[in-house]
């Protein structure tokens, strides 16, 4: 999309009808609009946003008072903004939002051969198909609105921007609607439930779902807290390392080594405790059956000694004597004789091969168990020694760290160091607490998820003879599948972009600054920081923050452009749009202003800069002049006389242009094209 022309009538400072034609040239793709503060730069940017999206930037005051004051005094009630634009296929459109009396109307026409064709139905949908409303604030951008991409305020800005560019708003609203519909079906299922079992389980499921959501949220907060505290500790470490005191530096180096050792030792302790759990699993049978196995083996041995195990005579031998009615000594053994009956009774005690094998196996197993007792005892003993040693070592390092901290705090004549050290100790304590919270919430989450699964399975097993009930439950399951699918897509998209956005930011950073800075994204807090060549965080300042902010916005625009034609998207596709930026270079140093003003037009197809003299003066003109296709000056016309007021002029290439004109018929801003002879 490229903007061709903007028409304004009685919109805020712009009394009467005024027109601005933008540069659509590929080579000279910059349109410059000069204006001092309060003359109408922000109103101009908001005129575009209002026309296309009926929205405003956050710093635009009195959003309900759009009618120009002079027009209002004359009894007029109509104001409008109209925009001529072309899409990527060079189709030409005219969009107009007009407010008249008490009604507002938005219309879009395609222009063919210079003529308006019939009005496009669903104009809002049409505009959103070209630039989604969520993305608009990044293309029509208030430079003073983005102060930081880091810290408490910054992290939400970065995350929100990434989510808006990916079109999360719509998907998240769809998820809320799905939840509502799922609840409707749950209510229906409850009403159709005769036994009350479904109601009971549904109530349990809802309660566990809330538990999961709450644990997730607490876990996320604790993870963010860890990142924040670690970042603060790093800052203090950096201050201590750059201390003028050699003693402090040396002690801090010692502490760094000790802290690294502590991490290693804690990991070793953790591994040993894991090994102990494995040993218990491996040797528990041996340990708990030790007494029983000993007694059993003693019993077998005793019975063997007595000759009762195995039995002194074989079952087959006794059977053969009975079948043949003849003893092995040759004597006849007649059936029903007293000898015959005695021999037959022997069968009850006679051993068979199966019984013999069982006794042998039992004996082997018992011998094996007795042998393992020694082995398990040895392994347990070793493990107990190692755990004890590791625990002692952890405590020793902690004591040493405490000593170092006390020494640093007690460094003579350096009161500031003491304060930093106290802050550091406090932060470390918060860190420990947050780490402990993370463990707790992870356990809670895992337990809740297991219970949720089990309760859902129980619900599935319930008898659903009623056709209605079966249908409701099937629908609920289906909605849950859809919810999970959309949530997973959102998660995947966000993760994919968060990994890549930093590549884009660094790419722009190379163009914007000559210093060897890099941007680093903290994926937990969405905090973007500048780091120097050796990885130290660059101290925050308004200038560095704005630099990073502009770099981030440029990366977002690039990302949106790349997503424009990406197929397979279920979310809002990307957009190619002009970059209209109000007050872009406010607190930037001259060196940055020059680089950025040069780099932005190279990255974007069409740029409209709204600049005050504080932005313009310095290195901007030198770097941007070759790219300027059209240039305008907003002049404040005021009805009051000049009297002793200073006559301020805009200077462009040695020529002067009015900034203010006094004793005019009405108070208003007029936009005049600037033409400067080369």
């Amino acid at each position, binding site marked *: 999309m490229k903007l061709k022309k903007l028409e304004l009538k009685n919109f805020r400072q712009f009394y009467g009808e005024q027109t601005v034609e933008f540069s659509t040239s590929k080579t000279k793709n910059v349109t410059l609009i000069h204006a001092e503060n309060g003359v109408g730069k922000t109103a101009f940017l908001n005129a575009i946003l209002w026309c296309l999206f009926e929205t405003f930037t956050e710093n635009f005051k009195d959003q309900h008072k759009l009618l120009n004051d002079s027009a209002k005094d004359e009894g007029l009630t109509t104001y409008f903004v109209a925009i001529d634009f072309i899409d990527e296929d060079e189709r030409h459109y005219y969009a107009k939002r007009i407010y008249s009396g008490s009604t507002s109307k938005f219309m879009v026409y395609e222009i063919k051969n210079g003529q308006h064709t019939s009005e496009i139905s669903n104009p809002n*949908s049409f505009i*959103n198909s070209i630039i989604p409303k969520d993305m608009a604030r990044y293309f029509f951008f208030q430079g003073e609105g983005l102060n930081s991409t880091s810290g408490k305020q910054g992290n939400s800005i970065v995350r929100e921007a990434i989510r808006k560019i990916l079109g999360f708003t719509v998907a998240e609203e769809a998820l809320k*609607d799905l939840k509502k*519909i799922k609840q409707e079906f749950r209510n229906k299922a409850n009403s159709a439930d005769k036994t009350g079992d479904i109601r009971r389980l549904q109530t349990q499921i809802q309660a566990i779902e809330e538990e999961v959501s709450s644990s997730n949220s607490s876990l996320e907060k604790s993870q963010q807290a860890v990142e924040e505290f670690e970042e603060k500790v790093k800052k203090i470490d950096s201050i201590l390392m750059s201390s003028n005191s050699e003693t402090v530096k040396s002690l801090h180096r010692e502490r760094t080594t000790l802290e690294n050792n502590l991490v290693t030792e804690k990991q070793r302790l953790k591994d040993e405790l894991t090994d102990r759990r494995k040993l218990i699993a491996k040797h528990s049978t041996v340990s708990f059956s030790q007494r029983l196995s000993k007694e059993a083996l003693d019993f077998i041995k005793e019975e063997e000694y007595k000759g009762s195990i195995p039995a002194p005579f074989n079952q087959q031998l006794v059977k053969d004597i009975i079948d043949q009615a003849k003893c092995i000594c040759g004597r006849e053994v007649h059936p029903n004789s007293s000898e015959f009956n005695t021999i037959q009774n022997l069968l009850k005690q006679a051993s068979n091969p199966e019984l013999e094998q069982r006794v042998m196996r039992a004996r082997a197993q018992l011998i094996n168990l007795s042998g393992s007792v020694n082995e398990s005892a040895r392994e347990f003993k070793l493990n107990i020694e190692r755990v004890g040693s590791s625990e002692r070592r952890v405590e020793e390092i902690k004591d040493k760290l405490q000593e170092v901290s006390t020494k640093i705090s007690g460094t003579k004549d350096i009161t500031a160091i003491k304060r930093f050290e106290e802050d550091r100790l406090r932060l470390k304590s918060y860190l420990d607490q947050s780490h402990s919270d993370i463990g707790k919430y992870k356990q809670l989450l895992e337990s809740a998820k297991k219970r949720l699964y089990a309760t859902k399975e129980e619900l599935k097993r319930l008898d659903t003879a009623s056709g209605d009930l079966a249908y409701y439950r099937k629908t609920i399951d289906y909605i849950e599948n859809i919810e999970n*699918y959309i949530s997973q897509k959102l998660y995947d998209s966000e993760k994919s972009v968060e990994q890549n956005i930093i590549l884009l930011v660094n*790419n722009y950073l190379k163009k914007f600054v000559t210093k060897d800075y890099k941007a680093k994204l903290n994926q937990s807090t969405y905090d973007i920081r500048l780091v120097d060549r050796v990885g130290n965080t660059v101290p925050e300042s308004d200038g560095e923050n704005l630099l990073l902010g502009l770099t981030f916005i440029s990366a977002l625009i690039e990302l949106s452009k790349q997503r424009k034609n990406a197929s397979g998207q*279920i979310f809002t596709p990307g957009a190619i749009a002009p970059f209209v930026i109000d007050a872009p270079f406010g607190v930037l140093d001259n060196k940055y202003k020059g680089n950025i003003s040069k780099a932005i037009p190279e990255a974007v197809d069409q740029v409209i800069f709204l600049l005050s003299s504080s932005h313009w003066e310095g290195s901007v003109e030198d770097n941007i002049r070759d790219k300027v296709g059209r240039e305008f000056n907003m002049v404040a016309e005021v009805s009051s006389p000049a009297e002793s007021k200073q006559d301020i002029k805009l200077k462009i290439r040695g020529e002067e242009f009015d900034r203010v004109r006094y004793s005019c018929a009405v108070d208003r801003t007029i936009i005049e094209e600037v033409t400067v002879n080369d």
Partner: protein
Amino acid sequence: MTTIDEFKKSLLEAAQNSSDEEHPLEDLARRLINVERKCIYGDEPSHTRLKKFRELIAEEVANLKDDENEA
């Protein structure tokens, strides 16, 4: 290859993969999100949104039933 080229390539590949193997729920997810989009940013009145959601879901659940019967 520059980082920017690598990023473009990975985006295109990801898009290609996702379009090659369409998940059974993808079509419905897309349709539901479009209904939502038209109501949030477009000219569709919001009171019809939940109604359309219910219709789309009912249609899909009915299709599931048909598939089960055929099977």
